[in-house]
């Protein structure tokens, strides 16, 4: 539990650091998980990294940490260093991949991971070892045909897949009302004969419980589940975007007060699982870690220019 909290803090501290580095011109491009961290870490906490498969999307910085990526590894990706384990600096940071951790390499394209996860789910069902495939995406991605095709296929074959939508109500500047017809994402599940669950994304325990239930269903042959976690996007879409250009200032100000991290801390403290002192100790520790990770990553070598042509095909 404190482990999860620590991961949430790590994500926030690393992200803050990346922003500073971006402003300083040292990092080209960042997508912040700010506001999504608790939901992401709670979801992964209900699963089994190492056993399960994870098709993450670009905003899953905190989920990646929860899956086992280290701060230094994520900083290596941010700096596009050769040792970035996801892609050796080939992709923008946020496309997480690690074969040994079961994190399936993604692309920057919105949506294609959804039916791909259905296929992975089919393979896992055939293998019959009780593993499942977790796939995450924003509510914008639900508009893609691939969302529908993935849910339809997984529904037909009862694949062990958890479809996890992080609904922050915005796809860059497009609000949910212009994105998702009907009542919401969770309601789409019924049409595919699978359970659809809506959950508050700032409630660690609620998210973890929803995912745990879906995992139980998947592992026992009960098929897929669609979960919609309602979260807030407490940053602009990316460092290339400024949401003040298209969002209501009052709404932004109100949302800024709803950061899920203080809420998680209070929940832990009120349950007696965390003391203010322990909290501070974790924070200090995390900050040191971030410093170390940043220094190491910045000092790490860039990819060799002559590696450009490698891995286009197996024999090169």
């Amino acid at each position, binding site marked *: 539990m404190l482990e999860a909290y620590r991961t949430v803090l790590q994500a926030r501290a690393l992200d803050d650091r990346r922003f500073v580095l971006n402003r300083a011109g040292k990092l080209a491009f960042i997508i912040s998980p700010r506001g999504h961290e608790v939901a992401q870490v709670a979801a992964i906490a209900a699963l089994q990294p190492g056993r399960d498969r994870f098709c993450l999307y670009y905003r899953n910085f905190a989920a990646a940490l929860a899956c086992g990526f280290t701060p230094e590894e994520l900083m290596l990706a941010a700096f596009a260093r050769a040792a970035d384990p996801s892609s050796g600096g080939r992709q923008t940071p946020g496309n997480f991949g690690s074969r040994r951790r079961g994190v399936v390499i993604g692309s920057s394209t919105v949506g294609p991971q959804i039916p791909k996860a259905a296929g*992975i789910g089919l393979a896992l069902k055939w293998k019959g070892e009780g593993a499942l495939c977790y796939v995450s995406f924003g509510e914008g991605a639900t508009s893609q045909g691939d969302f529908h*095709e993935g849910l339809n296929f997984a529904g037909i074959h009862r694949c062990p897949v958890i479809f996890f939508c992080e609904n922050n109500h915005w796809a860059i500047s497009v609000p949910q009302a212009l994105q998702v017809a009907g009542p919401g994402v969770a309601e789409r599940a019924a049409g595919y004969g699978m359970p659809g669950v809506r959950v508050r994304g700032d409630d660690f325990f609620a998210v973890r419980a929803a995912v745990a239930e879906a995992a139980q269903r998947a592992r026992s042959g009960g098929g897929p589940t669609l979960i919609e976690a309602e979260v807030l996007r407490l940053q602009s879409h990316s460092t290339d975007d400024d949401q003040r250009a298209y969002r209501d200032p009052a709404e932004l100000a109100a949302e800024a007060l709803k950061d899920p991290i203080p809420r998680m801390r209070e929940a832990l403290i009120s349950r007696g699982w965390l003391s203010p002192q322990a909290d501070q100790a974790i924070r200090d520790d995390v900050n040191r870690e971030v410093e170390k990770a940043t220094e190491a990553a910045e000092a790490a070598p860039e990819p060799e220019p002559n590696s450009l042509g490698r891995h286009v*095909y197996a024999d090169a």
Partner: protein
Amino acid sequence: MRMPERTLVQAVRDALYEEMERDEHVCVLGQDVGLKGGVFKATEGLQQRFGVDRVMDMPLAESSIAAVAQGLALEGFIPVAEMQFADYSYPAFNQIVNEIAKVRYRSNGDFSCPLVIRAPTGGGVRGALYHSQSPEAFYCHVPGLKVVLPSTPADAKGLLKAAIRDRDPVIFLEPKKLYRAERQDVPPGDAALLPLGSAAIVREGKDLTAVTYGYMRAVTVQAAARLSPDGIEVEVIDLRTLRPWDIETCVRSIQKTGRVAVVYEANRTGGFGAEVAAELAERCFASLDAPVSRIASPDVPAMPFSAALEHAFMLNPDKVAAGLRQVARY
């Protein structure tokens, strides 16, 4: 031992059957591939033999066919996905081009995605605008993909088996006009295996090289025969694999003949024949006695349903012979 006489579509089916027998990870998925055995019968009997998992009827959604195949490949299975017609592979274009082709590269070699996507291609069967297209150029422009387009039963079998064993994703296009056009002795089992990337000289000649592939191979061979009485001997090369393609075999031939035409069934502009022509014109500049010529289909969406218009669209031995003659006489 007498080798069995097989049509091209039977050879495809044999390759699938043998590879599925050889490796239980090989599986087949697509629309109507199950009990029906595919609209051209390329998967006939496979579901009865290997069951409904390994031979899976898919929903009518090409993007998910490609995506599910990819998911299976990422988990160590070797999927052979069928697109019912090459014209219907476009809904899967994003999955093929942005996802499947780039898995290995974008993961810096940590992941790979070995799979085969089969699709009947080309025209001449009254299939009209949407069952006749020749889209190979789209896939040949994509680093990370291999593209195969065989033209005989033996080649189809040998190359499909090789494609299934390849470590990279392969687009495998089958000229539907040839599915039942001829029977040929096809080697049994692994004796059929053919490496990807090697062309075949299917007719020797000293005066002119014709580089072609797919259904146009047969048309070009017939056209070549018409030039023979006039003392023009055409060397016909069947590329068989388009990406990577066998440049060396073509270059050697042109060094001998000094003339080359590229014959292809797709729309002329931007077709894969443009790549072949451009490359050969550059490599063989010093040997060429005539411009590299392209003999291709007109820039019309695809062949219409009307027999009269289909005939007007398609290359045939007469049209190809006329084109070859021009190159020979230049």
